[in-house]
């Protein structure tokens, strides 16, 4: 069942945090709301759940209007950052809770709960209490509890951020597997771009209550529509440049510190100031004076195993981050003069 959001406005604590938001989420897809803390992504999720009332606008699950439906009637499954397991109930009773609320027969409940627990690899822990489980196990129980009721929509609020790095990967895989298997429309909230890129069918990058860009992982990474998205999703170098008027998709020169560099404009641009977006791994370092490169000097080098990170100072004093694969190319010493080369296909120019 898909989710359709139309002209949504939400006020929270007296402030309008979301205004005029539009979003369509395909049935059965995994949609991620990505953004820094305070961007409104959790508020949007909680509005979809019904815990935060919509001031204006429409929210539909598969064509049915749910804008004013209380949360317990929305048929959602929700997974929380702090697991939110009922501490006084066993793992089994936690998972059975939603089925009992739906007045299903005890026999049916028993087999469904057991199957759900086995699916998350916890079939043997039904009689434990949540306190006796590890963080990863708790979140698996929470996942089983949300999925066992076969909700129309699965909502997840930063479910991985209380887990340590290793568990985070494991639970992440479990979530993706279960979601693909059950084909439940899922909205996942996170501030971790790697999580978003790895898990999602589509991603919505949020900033100050607005969706800056919605697209597949590759689209928001490769084709950021705004410098905000480029920065948040890719940690790109953002540099102010001069450009002439451009049509969407057109590649042409922009002027950076007096040097012309070729860059592609994903959207139409007016002449004047613009922002050059170049990811650290998309910049090349060459011998100084190489044709078409920008002169600079290595200020700092950091060896990170698989790659080496450089900070390069341009003549204008600007600093750019450049990542090179470790190996043959990491021969630039701090203080050395270099030339920076930009791949025209991967270097973008966006409106400022």
């Amino acid at each position, binding site marked *: 069942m898909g989710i359709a959001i139309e002209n949504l406005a939400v006020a929270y604590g007296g402030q309008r945090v979301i205004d005029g938001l539009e979003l369509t989420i395909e049935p059965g897809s995994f949609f991620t709301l990505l953004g820094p803390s305070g961007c409104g992504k959790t508020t949007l999720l909680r509005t979809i*759940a019904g815990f935060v009332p919509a001031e204006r606008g429409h929210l539909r699950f598969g064509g049915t209007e749910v804008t004013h439906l*209380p949360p317990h009637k929305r048929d959602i499954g929700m997974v929380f*950052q702090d697991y939110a397991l009922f501490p006084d109930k066993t793992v089994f009773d936690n998972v059975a809770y939603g089925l009992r609320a739906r007045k299903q027969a005890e026999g049916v409940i028993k087999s469904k709960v057991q199957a759900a627990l086995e699916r998350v690899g916890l079939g043997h822990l039904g009689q434990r209490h949540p306190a006796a489980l590890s963080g990863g196990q708790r979140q698996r129980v929470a996942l089983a509890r949300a999925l066992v009721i076969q909700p129309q929509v699965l909502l997840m609020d930063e479910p991985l951020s209380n887990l340590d790095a290793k568990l985070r990967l494991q639970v992440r895989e479990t979530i993706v597997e279960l979601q693909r298997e059950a084909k439940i429309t899922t909205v996942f909230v996170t501030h971790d771009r790697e999580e978003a890129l790895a898990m999602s069918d589509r991603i919505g990058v949020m900033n100050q209550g607005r969706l800056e860009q919605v697209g597949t992982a590759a689209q928001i990474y490769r084709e950021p529509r705004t410098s905000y998205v480029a920065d948040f999703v890719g940690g790109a170098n953002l540099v102010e440049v001069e450009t002439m008027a451009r049509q969407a998709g057109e590649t042409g020169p922009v002027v950076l510190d007096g040097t012309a560099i070729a860059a592609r404009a994903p959207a139409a641009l007016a002449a004047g100031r613009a922002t050059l977006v170049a990811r650290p791994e998309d910049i090349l370092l060459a011998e100084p004076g190489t044709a078409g490169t920008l002169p600079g000097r290595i200020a700092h080098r950091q060896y990170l195993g698989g790659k080496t990170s450089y900070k390069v100072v341009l003549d204008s004093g600007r600093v750019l981050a450049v990542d090179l694969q470790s190996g043959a190319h990491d021969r630039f010493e701090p203080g050395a003069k270099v030339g920076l080369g930009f791949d025209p296909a991967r270097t973008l120019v966006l409106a400022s």
Partner: protein
Amino acid sequence: MSRQFRSVWFWFSALALGILAVFLLYPLLRVLTGSLGSGSHSGWALLAADPKYFAAILNTIVLGVAVTLTTTLIGVPLAYFTARFEFPGKSIVAVLPLITLVIPEVIAAQTWLMMLGNNGFITRYLGARGIDIPSFYGWPGLITVMTFTYYTYIYIGTLAAIRGFDVQLEEAAQSLGTSPARSRLRVMLPVVLPSVLASALLVFTLVVGNFATATILGSRVPLLSVLTYQAAVAEGGSDPVMQSTLATVSIALVMIVLFVQRWIVSRGRHEVTQGRGARAERLRGLPGLFIGLLAGLLVVVSLLPLGSIVIGAFTVSRGPVMRWGEWTTAHVERLVRIAPDPVLNTLAYSAVATVIGITFSALVSYLIVKKRNILTPALDYLTALPLALSGTIIGLGLVMSFNTGFLPLTGTASIIVLAYVVRRLPFGIRNSSSTLYNIPNSIEEASVSLGVPPVATFFKVVLPLMLPAVAAAAVLTWTTTVAELSASIIVYSGGRETMPIQIYKLIDSNLMASASAYGLVLVAVILIPIIVATRVFKIDLFSSKA
């Protein structure tokens, strides 16, 4: 529909607020406005005219300061040594928090009289050997009994602060070159001080509101609470204007102190850094023995009332004369056969008050913590209000408001129950809300998201989690209401005596043996639920207290 569902809680809040307005705010306003009197008969003019009242105010403040000092002098060192050192006999100090709970004030005052009063067994024993001790009535008795009644408050407050103090701060000070003693003084003291001051001011307010000890021992020293009581129930007609005036003075006194306390606590906010607690250092040899003996002595003295009540209950008496050393079970038998009413009354009133109080507190604290709306801040303030009101004042307010008029309750049992509920309200609320703050909102939302409506969620998810705290609150409410005297003695009517009222009357008639018999039953009624709760149900009574 979502707005409708939220308004369920709004209407609950409005209902709770209405109840509080009728049974708390209105009585309080009656007390305050009553002081103005009518025409020339203004309480404030009378107050200024009679030096007796000025003396009572002064005495009350002096007593408050004196007891605050003595309790601090005992409570702070005891807490410090308990927190930071191991010494022989330390484990018995752990029973101290129970003492204030188990020994009702009226019994403490009575038993101290049985020991050191004019007819007391220690007085007699020493008198027979030619040693005359000064009269226990008046200042010596007031200060002694109140000190031993209230020092545990300072002890508990200070102990919590010292235990919560991050010992790494002290280590940091030492690493920067200060000696251990100096770093303790310079680093720990400022951090702990606000808590000590806060509990000291609490003791001051308790002394100002104290009725039982003040009236039993303070006959020669006019005190505000006693004069208020006398103005309320004086033979030959009470003086409603004067009782209101005196009550207003003590409310003002307590309010000033509470504001100072609030200010101190808010200034001390920065110190709540949770850190590593200190390991207790072992005190060996003479210092250890010395501290152990002192602490042991303190516990023994604090427990003396319990021993005395047993002795008193089984000692032969002829009228007011106690024949120490001769034993009988006549007093207890008489209580059971002829006059069990006060016992039955106490049990009935306290049981009802506990059920009502706990239910109301649980609901209101749920509204305050979890379902905030435009009304809940008012609920929050109102439910804390009884903290500033002594039992005497609450009793007065209820009598003034419900004697006649739209809700005549005087003469019924319900006004006693009401007095109990109102007095315990802040404690019940504090107890429930501290648990509720520990229940994350996400747990309720999880339940709602799984299809259970909000009100059902409260019963299925929140209430079970609150249960241990509610049980603890029930036991504490029970133990404190069965011992309640100062409010119930004002609102009760003939035939509805509770045990503390009966004990008070018997003490007043100097019938110590009969009083002891009731005292013994009262202590049993307090002690048995505590033992059952802590031993059988493993309830932690003090987790959210102090």
